[in-house]
């Protein structure tokens, strides 16, 4: 099967699909920001809202709600639309507050965009001022939310458009793991039967794995710049993955510094197994045990329903398969070059 070429075409087609769909499908509408940040019980609140990909002017039925921790809502009394993406919402805040200070979630709803949510939009405080209205908290059922239609990626606060990086950053780490696992298997095979062919396969796959790892770090770094504000932070996940890649780079140095073919293969195979066994705790276990900003670690979710939805999965899973196929293709090429070079040296 590895000599046939249909899977190479398949891999390229999948990647083309991933790039086109992953880059062109629009995001769902969302709320970027709202102002002011505070409001008091029993007072009127005029909230200035900035939306993203929204259709405020075009939509006919715009409603807005503020939701408290007890799943109760207060609806807006007036909606003034400025443009497609800006609106002024007027709320009569109820006099009753359950806590001295509470964060309220803003929900906006119209028939074109469906509903969008901004968590912790305003802080609701107790007040000593005279009460200006008779509004009360109502059950959440009164908010009749329109469903969102069409094939769109979810809008996530902070992430915004960078949610598309899931298809590249996350998928390439998966593909890297596949490459390293194949490398590991062939290293074990080499130690069992000392066939240089196995060592050549192991080094080819490991090299491509390292390349994927470096690209994974780079894409992650760009993502971090947009979401955390810096290319590199001293986060445990980042440190550990950098160390893991360094361990594998050391594997390449080790190979280059040994002249004898058999010694090189044996020593490098042992080190490769060792490197893989260090990789798993470093990037999978350690970051999960301590605090980390990175999703999937330190109590942060990743790939769960909060982060992924079926539209993202429709591109994310193919991306993993496509990148893995591409990696296998690259590895077979590397393998052939390696074999040719070795033959050259021996002659």
């Amino acid at each position, binding site marked *: 099967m590895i000599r046939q070429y249909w899977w190479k075409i398949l891999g390229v087609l999948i990647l083309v699909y991933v790039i086109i769909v992953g880059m062109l499908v629009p995001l769902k509408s969302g709320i970027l920001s709202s102002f002011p940040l505070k409001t008091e019980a029993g007072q009127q609140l005029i909230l200035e809202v900035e939306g993203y990909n929204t259709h405020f002017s075009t939509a006919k039925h715009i409603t807005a709600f503020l939701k408290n921790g007890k799943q109760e809502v207060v609806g807006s009394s007036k909606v003034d639309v400025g443009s497609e993406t800006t609106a002024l919402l007027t709320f009569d805040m109820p006099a009753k507050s359950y806590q001295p200070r509470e964060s309220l979630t803003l929900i906006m709803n119209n028939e074109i965009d469906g509903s969008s949510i901004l968590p912790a939009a305003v802080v609701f405080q107790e007040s000593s001022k005279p009460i200006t209205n008779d509004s009360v908290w109502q059950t959440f059922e009164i908010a009749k939310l329109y469903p969102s239609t069409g094939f769109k990626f979810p809008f996530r606060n902070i992430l915004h458009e960078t949610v598309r990086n899931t298809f590249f950053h996350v998928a390439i780490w998966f593909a890297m793991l596949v490459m390293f696992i194949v490398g590991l298997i062939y290293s074990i095979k080499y*130690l069992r039967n000392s066939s240089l062919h196995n060592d050549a396969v192991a080094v080819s796959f490991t090299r491509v794995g390292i390349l994927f790892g470096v690209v994974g770090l780079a894409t992650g770094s760009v993502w971090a710049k947009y979401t955390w504000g810096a290319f590199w932070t001293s986060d445990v996940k980042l440190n550990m993955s950098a160390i893991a890649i360094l361990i594998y*780079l050391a594997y390449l*140095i080790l190979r280059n510094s040994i002249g004898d073919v058999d010694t090189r293969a*044996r020593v490098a195979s042992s080190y490769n197994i060792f490197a893989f066994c260090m990789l798993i705790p470093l990037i999978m*276990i350690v970051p999960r*045990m*301590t605090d980390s900003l990175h999703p999937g670690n330190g109590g942060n979710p990743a790939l769960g329903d909060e982060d992924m939805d079926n539209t993202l999965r429709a591109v994310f899973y193919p991306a993993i398969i496509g990148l893995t196929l591409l990696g296998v293709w690259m590895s077979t090429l590397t393998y052939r070059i390696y074999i040719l070079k070795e033959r050259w040296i021996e002659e």
Partner: protein
Amino acid sequence: MLTEILCVCAKEMKVDMRNLSTVGSVLLFLIGSTLISQKCFVTIHGVGWVALFWILYLFSIINMALQAFQSGRSSSRLAQYTYHDGVAYAIGKWLYQFGLNMCLALVLLGVMTVFFGNPIDDLGLFGLGVLLATIGLCTILSFVSFLTASVENSHMLSTVLAMPITLPFLLLGVKVSVVSLGLISDTSIGSDLVLMLAIALFSVGISLVLLPTLWKA
């Protein structure tokens, strides 16, 4: 097996006692560099103390471990192969190394206390951190130096190979010692210690699995 391990241990000690140059040079390095630091800094506190401790400790451990597997000639290696079981030999050497390194840590602590004073609040925690880090560092460095023993210019190579693997232990070790100095407070330091123990045991396990295949060569 146990007697064999102890036998290897005792033999290692005898070899080192007969030829004191290895231990002597590392001790000289420790005391010398602490003295130089004292002359330069006059006094250091807190983070500087921790940094100096770990730098000196790391370098002496690296020196020790690299000597351990490279002292013998190839003919004597063959002799050892015929005498000992690979795993027992490795465990014996490792145990001796571990003991030696812990002694070095004590000496270093003593020397630094003399020159700079002792800022440690929680000596137990500090000791535990050093102990766990030593298990990990010792295993990794022994493994790497064993791996590269047959290669030319192996000192360089072992250092390059060992550096990234030792980093997690160093990071955790530094964190634990900073906490033990009372510079930062961390309620979850227990989980860091468990983590360190886990990685250390893990690396011990891997080394034990891989050593026999290398030993045959």
